[in-house]
């Protein structure tokens, strides 16, 4: 439906986007505030960015967070893609209901419960808590998100393509690698990005399963923010927002360009025929 875009529609969109973006814009603007008092404007300055980069604790936390995010999202992508393939393509097997339940449950179970239960597991196994345990925890809940993203692509994907590959002499693995994977690749990549973001974002689960040796950026931010506003956090937030915005906007532009190019090629093909 695309008829009659009314004033009411325009107003609700405008107000909605003001509500969504104004807080972020204020945050960004005040990261360039000179004053230590975050809410009082005292002139333009980039000094908090300087201080941020001087702050070793933040830098260490950022490195830990990135490491955890890269490793856990990669594991999650592999496991999640496998899980999606199992759910969509392998039909019935014993325990399938439990399996699909375990795939969907982490999406709805509160973080506090997932964190608590994983911590209790690691303790009863006698595992030392640190980067490894955070990676395991993040990979576990992220793989469920990856699997949802990938399976929605697999469902809409014409299975006769795989059958054609097998018919033309591929082994099942060949068929997967040379036909299925390239076609579901966009979903796998967005699954990885989602897992990566979830890992970067997670405070609660990481707080439960990490030990004194590993502090992630959200944990660090949280402990600072609890004490109140801090100009350094504003600066850090701005950097994170900038990275995400550039990433999302450029990927959606690339996507749009690819779509436009494909449409144009299709039109050219039609003209030629």
């Amino acid at each position, binding site marked *: 439906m695309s008829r009659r875009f009314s004033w009411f529609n325009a107003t609700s969109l405008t107000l909605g986007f003001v509500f969504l*973006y104004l807080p972020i814009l204020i945050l960004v603007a005040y990261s360039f505030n000179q004053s230590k008092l975050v809410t009082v404007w005292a002139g333009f300055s980039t000094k908090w960015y300087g201080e941020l980069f001087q702050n070793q604790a933040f830098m260490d936390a950022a490195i830990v967070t990135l490491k955890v995010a890269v490793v856990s999202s990669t594991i999650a992508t592999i496991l999640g893609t496998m899980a999606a393939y199992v759910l969509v393509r392998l039909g019935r097997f014993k325990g399938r209901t439990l399996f699909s339940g375990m795939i969907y449950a982490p999406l709805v179970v509160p973080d506090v419960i997932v964190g608590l239960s994983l911590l209790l597991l690691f303790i009863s196994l006698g595992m030392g808590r640190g980067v490894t345990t955070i990676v395991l925890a993040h990979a576990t809940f992220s793989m469920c998100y990856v699997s949802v993203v990938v399976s929605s692509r697999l469902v809409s994907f014409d299975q006769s393509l795989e059958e054609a590959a097998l018919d033309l002499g591929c082994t099942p693995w060949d068929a997967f690698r040379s036909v299925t994977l390239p076609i579901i690749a966009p979903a796998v990549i967005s699954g990885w990005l989602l897992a990566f973001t979830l890992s970067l974002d997670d405070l609660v689960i990481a707080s439960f399963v990490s030990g004194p040796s590993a502090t992630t950026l959200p944990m660090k931010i*949280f402990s600072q923010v609890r004490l109140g*506003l801090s100009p350094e956090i504003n600066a850090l937030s701005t950097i994170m927002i900038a990275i995400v915005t550039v990433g999302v906007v450029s990927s959606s532009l690339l996507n749009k360009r690819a779509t436009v190019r494909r449409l144009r090629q299709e039109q050219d093909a039609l003209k030629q025929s």
Partner: protein
Amino acid sequence: MFNPRRLFLILVPYSWLFFLFLVPFGIVLKISLSDAALSIPPYTPQFDPEGGWAAIRELFSGFDLENFIWLSEDNLYWKAYLSSVWIALVSVLLTLLVGYPIAYAMARSSEEWRPTLLMLVILPFWTSFLIRVYAWIGILGSNGYLNQLLLWSGVIDEPLVILNTNWAVYIGIVYTYLPFMVLPIYATLEKLDGDLLEAAEDLGCSRFQAFWLVTVPLSRPGIIAGCFLVFIPVVGEFVIPSLLGGSKTLMIGKILWDEFFSNRDWPVASAVAVVLLLILIIPIILFQRQQQRAQEAEQ
């Protein structure tokens, strides 16, 4: 038929989830039935794998419902559960009121604008949750931007107390969970066949009647999905109440956190988690069934 490839494919993700998702729940359940103790780890009875059957029997005889009785006797927990559910319900309603007009406007905008609008709604979701909640501390504080604006414009004489109240929690929830409401509603509205609205008008409806009798009922699956997607995680929410809420804001996620980290009472924390899960299991199952029905209806 034995097929090693198939078995491998199933077994790897299956066992991963089994050991890192299901088994931990078993452990939570076990500890919730144990007693707190000043040991490491701080609960009894402990399971001694070398004791064999006798140890298992001893383990079970040590279990009791003491923690659950404790939860039911202490007003704090009751109130926290109730207030979590209440806050989640109010938030769902508020998010729906804010989100529906946005989704509706997106679905009615022209086709070339929709991907951009969609990206704009999703974009905040990719930025850190924590940062988005943090942004509101500066806005809602007693000398925050909102109070500065209102005082300056003369609407109020004294700063409003919003931060550290439930209102701040509602605002924070609506803000952070808005995409979860907008996206499913938008998805159903976008599929809505414009012919249906024309048919309704052709049969004598005013535009508002057509909206009420056709658009709203047909977007119901989206509304329901959105409400569940907001309600379920909000009940167990921790970050928002602990940053924006005050001492009077009771939410069970926060209680669990405090019980675990401050009181170090693992058995009670586990019992709290078990009850929370029991509360959530009904909406989770309802949600799953609704999703399944929506999927079947599509086919």
